[in-house]
């Protein structure tokens, strides 16, 4: 695949924009980039059950190479709109875990195919 670094940058941009807009003004993120894959982990405080369901719905859609090719440049571009659909289509695996009562960890794995 081409533009891997750029695509990862866009995914991070969209994620950060989305969560800041949703009121998560304190979030931590870890990015692990290698030749084979990128792993992005985000820790969030106080995510409501309904919001978590929406996040899960968007991020577990499964990777779609055609859609990724078509729309990856859109991620992080809008000041107004931030949705996780496209991020979900650029991701191979998602793990969402409760670290403790208040904090959830979202781990996104993207293979560099």
């Amino acid at each position, binding site marked *: 695949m081409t533009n891997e670094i750029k695509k990862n940058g866009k995914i991070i941009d969209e994620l950060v924009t989305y969560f800041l807009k949703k009121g998560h003004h304190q979030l931590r993120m870890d990015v692990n980039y290698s030749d084979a894959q990128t792993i992005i982990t985000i820790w969030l405080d106080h995510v409501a059950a309904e919001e978590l369901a929406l996040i899960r*719905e*968007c991020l577990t*859609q*499964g990777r*779609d*190479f*055609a*859609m990724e*090719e*078509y*729309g990856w*440049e*859109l991620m992080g*571009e*809008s*000041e*107004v*709109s931030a*949705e996780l*659909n*496209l991020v*979900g*289509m650029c991701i191979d695996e998602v793990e969402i875990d409760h670290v403790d009562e208040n904090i959830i960890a979202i781990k996104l794995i993207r293979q560099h195919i």
Partner: protein
Amino acid sequence: MQLVISRDALVTDYIAVSGLSATLINVVLVMVFTLFIKRINHVELNGFVIAGLLTTMGFAFFGKNIYNILPIYLGVFLYARSVKRPFKQFFVIAMFATGLAPLVTVGINFGILGLIIGSVIAVGYGFIIPAIASHVIRFHNGYLLYNIGFSGGIVALILTAVLRVTGLDLEVVVNVNEAWDIHYILFAILIGMSLLFISFGLLRERFNWSRYKKLMSMSGRAVTDYYRIFGEGLMLVNMGIVGLMLTLLVAFSGIPLNGATVGSIISVMGFSAFGKNPKNIIPLILGCILMIIVSGTVITPSVLLVLIFVTGLAPIAGEFGFVIGIIAGILHFSLVQYTAEWQGGANLYNNGFAGGFIAGVISSIMDSIAKRSM
């Protein structure tokens, strides 16, 4: 045969050219070819693919035929080979790219040589469109659902200018069915399709109003795939509802239904799997109706196409609200009157071309306002 070798420029209703039977055969042939390509490339179904399939089906009523779409598929296939990626990644782009199928018959007055030159131009267009489309999408930031229409329009604009400078003038055509007996058959087809979609959707899944409200709460900005997010039951219901709305709007306008209006409604039903819903299309249609009333515009088949295809701006209304949606409809209605002429009718997605400018302008203004308030 008359259908295949017609000029195909916007708006050439194949029902007016060759009759309803030949048109329906063309629709079947185009769909068999498209579904065959989809199958051999193992393309999975999603909202984007459904939008592409129904758009292909819709435009097979007025402008796409089994002959003029082939060179564009070949061009996109050659592009995929050149970048060493599977064609399946570009299949949907190829489906939409056939909106410039009239390029193939651009030199039809010059006989076989003209057709060969037109085909070569179409192959070249297919080869460059994936790269242009991925770049152009940033202009409107996904607030227009017809990105290939906008990208293709830019290519058509340049090509038309070159051809006009060299002395070959391209004209916009308006040749549509005016028979009322055909109107009733087409009305039955549209109502039947819409009700089928709703019925299948309800069979797949019991209707849940709160889930449908959630669907309508999404802006529809690219990429919003209702099939993936909400499943095929609710998506089919949404497609059917939008189809019914538009059919009733157009059927009682006093103008007989024709291949172009039927095809455009089918296409919009397809995009109701990929961003459109009643909430984000109504303000745009109201904006157009307002402009029709204020300007005293006479309702014609071309005006009805604008009413239907203004819905390509659905993400504008979905994201920025009802009033901005009405303004977008007003602006679109005004601009689209001129853009078909700019492209010499070579781009079947004239509303997509005009909509790109409106989406780009409105979204950049709204983004700028949002930046200041952040």
